């Protein structure tokens, strides 16, 4: 399929099926976010108090990390659109590596909490914090797996300027993962 034509035709980038997933995931996270927000309204003291125990700096750094990773993916797509397979591969590798940084920082955060004895059953705030960030964590992993698959095919010369639907598909999913965190961070870490 001529993806450069598709790019101008008004159609969503990549395979349409991934967009169904993207919308579905956004829906589920959206419902979860609102459940958090309204649950907070019923438990303001508890949420405010428990929220202070969060590592806001780690959350902010992770936001920077994901935004950067997304930026690298944008550069990767731009490269393949210019038929530059080599740089596309480099940008994808960088994106995955930076995604790995997110995972490490997040695991450090989880480690901190678990050793302090915090679990899903500690209180409603921590139930939401752990659930939301854990679900998101799993989606980061899935996104990295998808990007890795795209990277492998790129390395093998499987994409070109005329045919790179797979790259756009993987990129779109990764941006969704970033988008979810963009809402999660202010909602859970900042809004007080």
């Amino acid at each position, binding site marked *: 399929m001529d993806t450069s034509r598709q790019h101008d035709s008004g159609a969503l980038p990549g395979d349409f*099926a991934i967009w*169904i*997933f993207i919308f*579905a995931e956004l*829906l*589920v996270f959206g*419902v*979860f976010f609102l*459940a958090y927000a309204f649950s907070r309204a019923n438990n303001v003291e508890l949420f405010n108090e428990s929220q202070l125990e969060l590592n806001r700096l780690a959350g902010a750094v992770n936001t920077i990390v994901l935004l950067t990773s997304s930026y690298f993916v944008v550069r990767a797509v731009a490269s393949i659109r210019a038929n530059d397979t080599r740089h596309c591969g480099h940008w994808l590798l960088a994106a995955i590596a930076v995604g790995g940084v997110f995972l490490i920082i997040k695991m450090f955060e989880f480690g901190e909490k678990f050793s302090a004895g915090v679990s*899903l*059953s500690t209180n409603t705030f921590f*139930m*939401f914090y752990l*659930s939301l960030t854990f679900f998101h964590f799993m989606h980061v992993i899935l996104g990295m797996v998808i990007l890795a698959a795209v990277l492998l095919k790129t390395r093998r010369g499987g994409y070109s300027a005329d045919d790179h639907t797979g790259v756009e598909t993987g990129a779109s999913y990764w941006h969704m993962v970033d988008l979810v965190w963009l809402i999660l961070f202010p909602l859970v870490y900042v809004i007080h």
Partner: protein
Amino acid sequence: MQYSSQAVAKPYFIAAIGLFIGQILFGLIIGTQYVIGDFLFPEIPFNVARMVHTNLLIVWLLFGFMGAAYYLVPEEAERELFSPKLAIAMFWIFLVAGALTIVGYLAVPYATLAAVTGNDLLPTMGREFLEQPTITKVGIVVVALAFLYNIGMTIITGRKTVINIVLLTGLTGLAVLFLFSFYNPINLVLDKMFWWWVVHLWVEGVWELIMGAILAFVLIRLTGVDREVIEKWLYVIIAMALITGIIGTGHHYYWIGTPEYWQWWGSIFSALEPIPFFMMTVFAFTMVNRRRKEHPNKAATLWALGTAVMAFLGAGVWGFLHTLAPVNFYTHGSQITAAHGHMAFYGAYVLVVITMISYAWPHLQHNAPAANGRAQLLEMWSFWLMTISIVFITLFLTGAGILQVYLQRVSDTPLPFMVVQDKIALFYWLRLYTGLIFFAGLCLYVYSFFAKGKESLASS
């Protein structure tokens, strides 16, 4: 039909409908016992009749799924079934084992059945829907494994279509999850947790894959729409079903002693479980609207569309009504549950099996693409009678449930269970009369198989 081995589906379909009749007869018995408490007591006590009703439902649906698979897999894989003999052998083993089990329920006290079938060696009896003796359960596993082997070998050595793969995945999931019926923890919380791994992950999980695959198969043939389009829809539908349904299992974990976070996880994910059913409805209607040909089997088209709509209403909408934890706290185990259960099972699984039979039977029996006009008309009458009856049964039970929940749990002066049951008896009478109409619809469906047309059969 294209492959002669598809004929093994016939006995499965016959058994399915036969057991369906048995299921409804026993449904009428327990419906009567709701209002005339000692009807047929002590020969057929309520709990025994209920076991027969629910077990027959599951068994006839399994016969239906197997028949559907034996019919559609050779056609999809573009080769004959791997072993028609094995399929027939398993048919008789399953039928006899099932019949003996039902006879066992009716003929002897349950405790005696447990004793004579060696339940103490590996106790698996005594749980709702899983009342079968352990040896029956082992028999089911053997039949399921042989069935999967047969279908699997056919697919592996033939054309692997999306429909085939989704169906096989669903059926394999069905078999694997059934193994949890052998796991009977002493701890009551764990017992209930794993029980739902069979029940929920069946009907709100892998069975949806089976349903989707069958519906997709039938729609491709009835509408002539591009396979690629239909298969893409199928992928999206089953993805949504699994994304929402797996963690959605949590909506059964609210009150059984598991941690409180299940009330959140279960509510959030299960609230979205209607989505795949909604998609199936849009999918079915869109495909029929975009059809490339006028298939002579109008009845099958009606059954197919009916499946999508009733599944959405019964499983999706009625399920949603009581899925959120704050609501379920009050409605748990009430007639609301029964209302949802009946319409959901009818809409999703009863109808998809009948859709398949309606589509396949003319090919199997008459080598024709559709039954004669009169037979189809009777089928359509049957559809409307059964469907409208179920809708009213559901409405009556919903009414009974709302009243029950209010009087027994919500009101400032809650009343005892039996007192409330007395007060809502009117709904049970109405349900019973409607059940008779449902049965009439079913009889009409059976009669349609024998109806002779005025015009000659359409040639294939």
